[in-house]
């Protein structure tokens, strides 16, 4: 199959040649939107681009706009859309009337175009596999996310999602002093996110303990209380430090979200952490000579580590897991000089199962829409999860394919009846349908 597009004007022409219909489809829709002055709803479905200049007359105009267009990575757009969706779940009256396209349209007030806009510069291009390769942004994986599912009431200092064991020790009635006393010097990171969209305190334990909600305890507080607690914590930390004559970072660190992101970035620049994958587990080394892992490799290791933890955490799947695993793999822990190796070995003593990249290797397809469906089948029949979020699916898909699926793929599969969306009230998940499984069996598994 081939899918070619030729754009011509009196002055010039250029051609895109591709055998990937997903790429061609998106490109064609962008050109169509430009040239034929498509509606806003049509443009919003493209997601990559929203036009500000509606008076295009020539390819030169298109080229100019493309050059001036702001480049925005797919994963950032995805995160914005999902974050916006989460915000909407906190306001159900808004959520019900908004579809993904509308959310996207509202988010993308600026003009976005992806890096493929470089093709505008060429008079003739040939592309074969042109899906954008994306390296996850580590700084986004810090403690700035909120798990909207878990936030039910906006009451000050509410303890949420604690295990039974943790509830025995820490309850919503605990004062911050009592919490500190319980946590002692195990607290590694207190992240105060008290902006308008996230009113959360995350207390991460340096010593990973699954009974402490994967090391993260969340409280929902208002802005004033968050500031007050932060000051109290700093004061307590100083007292503890003076009393025990220890370095400040050996106890715990306190930061707000933006400060924490800077610290994580500094960690990345300094290559403090390297991750080595052994047969059975990951170990963390602080040897400066062994800092050979690339950002992408580390992210892949993190995502694989996330996959390894899925089987024991089937009902808590979200991007927060990436954040949690960052902590497990040491971005936070290394910063404050703790020793997470013991905990990592304990948590990885799980029965082996099929990784998605191995599972996918049994198929011939390289098309994203098919890989999406294979991944959906994998999640249901291998991971035994009835439904999934886009983030969760992409956490499987990206390490195996280097591609990230967006809502256009989802919409296409829903239209074909191969997957269905499930409205959970405060979130939307997806599930493969019997028709999708039938297509998977009949069409995709032809090699078996």
């Amino acid at each position, binding site marked *: 199959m081939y899918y070619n597009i030729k*754009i011509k004007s009196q002055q010039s022409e250029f051609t895109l040649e591709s055998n990937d219909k997903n790429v061609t489809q998106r490109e064609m829709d962008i050109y169509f939107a430009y040239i*034929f002055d498509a509606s806003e709803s049509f443009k919003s479905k493209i997601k990559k681009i929203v036009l500000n200049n509606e008076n295009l*007359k020539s390819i030169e105009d298109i080229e100019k706009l493309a050059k001036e267009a702001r480049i925005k990575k797919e994963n950032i757009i995805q995160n914005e859309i999902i974050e916006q969706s989460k915000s909407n779940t906190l306001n159900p009256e808004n959520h019900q009337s908004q579809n993904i396209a509308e959310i996207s349209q509202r988010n993308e007030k600026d003009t976005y175009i992806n890096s493929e806009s470089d093709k505008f510069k060429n008079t003739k291009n040939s592309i074969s596999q042109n899906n954008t390769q994306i390296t996850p942004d580590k700084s986004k994986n810090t403690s700035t996310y909120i798990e909207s599912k878990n936030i039910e009431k906006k009451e000050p200092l509410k303890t949420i999602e604690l295990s039974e064991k943790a509830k025995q020790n820490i309850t919503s009635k605990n004062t911050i002093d009592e919490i500190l006393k319980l946590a002692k010097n195990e607290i590694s990171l207190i992240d105060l996110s008290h902006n308008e969209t996230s009113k959360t305190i995350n207390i991460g334990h340096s010593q990973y303990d699954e009974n402490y909600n994967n090391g993260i305890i969340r409280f929902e507080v208002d802005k004033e209380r968050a500031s007050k607690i932060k000051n109290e914590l700093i004061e307590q930390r100083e007292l503890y430090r003076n009393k025990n004559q220890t370095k400040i970072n050996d106890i715990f660190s306190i930061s707000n979200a933006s400060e924490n992101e800077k610290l994580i970035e500094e960690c990345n620049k300094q290559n403090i952490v390297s991750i080595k994958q052994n047969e059975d587990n990951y170990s963390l080394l602080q040897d400066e000579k062994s800092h050979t892992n690339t950002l992408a490799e580390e992210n892949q290791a993190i995502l694989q580590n996330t996959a390894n933890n899925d089987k024991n955490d089937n009902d808590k799947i979200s991007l927060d897991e990436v954040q949690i695993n960052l902590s497990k793999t040491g971005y936070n822990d290394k910063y404050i000089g703790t020793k997470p190796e013991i905990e990592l070995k304990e948590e990885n003593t799980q029965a082996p199962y099929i990784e998605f990249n191995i599972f996918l290797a049994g198929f011939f397809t390289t098309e994203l829409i098919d890989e999406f469906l294979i991944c959906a089948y994998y999640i249901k029949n291998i991971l035994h999860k009835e439904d999934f979020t886009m983030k969760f699916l992409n956490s499987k898909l990206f390490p195996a394919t280097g591609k990230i699926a967006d809502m256009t793929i989802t919409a296409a599969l829903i239209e074909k009846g191969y997957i269905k969306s499930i409205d959970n009230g405060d979130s939307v998940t997806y599930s493969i349908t019997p028709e999708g499984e039938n297509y998977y069996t009949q069409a995709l598994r032809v090699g078996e």
Partner: protein
Amino acid sequence: MPQYVFKMKKGELEIEFSSDDAEFVEQQLEKWREEILKKQAQ
């Protein structure tokens, strides 16, 4: 194998779309046609 070539013009600009995937061609053209009609109706 059949080949499908479609051209659409607006002013001096022209989009030429060619493929041997009949189903994809149908979907894409239908989508564009609906969009054009929708705009005309506005």
